[in-house]
């Protein structure tokens, strides 16, 4: 059996003790939890500085400047970020804090630009582009509703597009004047009829039933947004709210799953299930858990008594 180093054994016990220390917050806020909390902040911050230096500042700044001075003159361009970094540190001084505005301006401008391009290509184009389902293909593959393919089909495609429109219209808060409200229903009907006619004559589907189904789906998708310009807008927005609620409900379910998973991870650690059997035999995590629990409960008892 490979023997663990003494430091590793102590570490494993410390780790279990700290786990229970943090869990003690569930009983009540207490000094040992606060110690653990501040210890975490300190170690995490120190760790962040160290890794930022070794992984970023050294190879991407200091080493490159060093290369610049030892022959590779094009690397001297890295004096620019050095100067900018020094300027950023002026932020500490109340008097010269304005000097730091130059590097901040560069950083914020670069972020703003990458955000604009990223959101446009990744979300606006990528997501809206994917929201025009090919219903003829969908009919051929799945028909109206396919249980085998998680409910894929013309019904789901229609609900996806109408749901998306409804949610977007729910986010549209401006008032629509009474005259404009008269336009929605006739425009919606005309659009529906036109789309239906196009689908019946042009859709690449053999069966008439399929053409009608696809026509109805596409017609609904095209006509629904016109309800915004009608007195029935609230019906669409209410549908949008329901769609949003389903999504938020799903988010809640997933969040529960995620949070329980994290607790399971700690449970596995306390019971030694995440460790190799060789380590478990030396650490005795169950005993460590028990001893730590006794210490922490005693501490909590003492703190309570002191408080009273």
């Amino acid at each position, binding site marked *: 059996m490979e023997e663990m180093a003494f430091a590793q054994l102590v570490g494993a016990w410390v780790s279990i003790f700290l786990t229970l220390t943090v869990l003690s917050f569930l009983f009540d806020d207490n000094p040992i939890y606060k110690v653990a909390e501040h210890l975490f902040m300190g170690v995490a911050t120190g760790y962040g500085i160290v890794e930022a230096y070794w*992984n970023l500042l050294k*190879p991407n700044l200091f080493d490159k400047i060093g290369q610049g001075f030892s022959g590779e003159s094009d690397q001297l361009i890295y004096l620019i970020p050095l100067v900018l970094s020094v300027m950023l540190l002026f932020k500490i001084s109340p008097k010269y804090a304005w000097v730091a505005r130059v590097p901040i301006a560069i950083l914020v401008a*670069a972020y703003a630009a990458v955000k604009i391009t990223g*959101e446009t290509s990744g979300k606006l184009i990528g997501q809206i582009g*994917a929201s025009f389902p090919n219903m003829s293909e969908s009919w051929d593959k799945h028909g109206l509703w396919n249980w085998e393919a998680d409910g894929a089909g013309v019904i789901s495609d229609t609900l996806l597009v109408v749901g998306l429109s409804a949610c977007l219209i729910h986010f549209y808060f401006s008032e629509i004047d009474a005259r404009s409200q008269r336009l929605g229903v006739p425009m919606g009907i005309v659009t529906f009829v036109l789309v239906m006619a196009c689908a019946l004559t042009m859709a690449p589907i053999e069966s008439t039933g399929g053409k009608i189904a696809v026509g109805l789906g596409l017609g609904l998708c095209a006509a629904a947004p016109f309800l915004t310009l009608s007195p029935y807008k609230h019906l669409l927005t209410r549908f949008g709210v329901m769609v949003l609620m389903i999504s938020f409900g799903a988010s809640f379910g997933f969040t529960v*799953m995620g949070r329980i*998973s*994290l607790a399971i991870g*700690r449970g596995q650690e306390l019971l030694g299930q995440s460790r190799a059997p060789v380590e478990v035999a030396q650490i005795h995590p169950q005993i460590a858990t028990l001893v730590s629990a006794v210490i922490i409960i005693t501490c909590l008892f003492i703190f309570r008594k002191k408080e009273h």
Partner: protein
Amino acid sequence: MLEWLIKFQRMDRRWVFLGMAIAIFIPLVFPLQLPFRVDKEVRDVYRQVEKLPEGSAVLISADFDPASVPEIGPFFTTHLHHLFRRNLKPVLVTLWPTAIPLVLPEIKAIAKTYNKKYGEDFVFLGYKEGKELVIKNIGQNIFQQFPTDYDGTPLPDLPIMQGRRQAKDFPLIVSISAGFPGLNEYVLQIQGQYNLNMVGVCTAVGGPDYIPFYKSGQLKGLSMGMPGSAQYEKLVWKDKPAPGVKLLATAAMDVLNLGHVFIIVLIIMGNIAFFITRRIEEA
């Protein structure tokens, strides 16, 4: 009755905490071992790896911290086994400083069991601060942003990096992400621009946000949370893990069962008490 119901609704939350703790510990000690299905999204992740030709390099961005290890750590471990088993070459980067000690010893230990050589069969390029700016540069010029690997070896000296200067030089990008910066930023900043073949691994909390990317084809596969990791373990190991390998996510699925049921029971009980109280008060 009314008094009791009101009391029940206002009971000390520590009783709920205790119930939750019991719901977690009981199945850990007495596992149920219920079978589970594999979702299409996770199967797609597996297929993307399977269809790569031997010797291909896979760019993995491991962006997680100790808190998210129970959810996506098992995926990371299994993924490395999967890649090495298929003679694929993982190139690891991270945008989260806390990921370094989680991924570096892991990849070195697993590589050792497959006799893989650092620098030729796998490499860890280290961590960079700068979030989206780093991702942008990974898309454009990895050598610029990562002049050396984690150990300080210049990238041009590493055989594995020959001819792999940009993200699009990798036939598969895997973003293992616990939040920001991570999967969302990779999709936004480089996936679309360079039309990258990309799969995502996320925590359960982020799952509903990333499904639209999978449905739109921007992500070719998606594993969400602990169930995703368990399903991937099932696909890779087929219930027969290599000696010394622990299927932590598979074991945890049992606990999730009881945890979820406990929360649903709480919701139902809370609502029953609420409605009875309301009815009595109205009467």
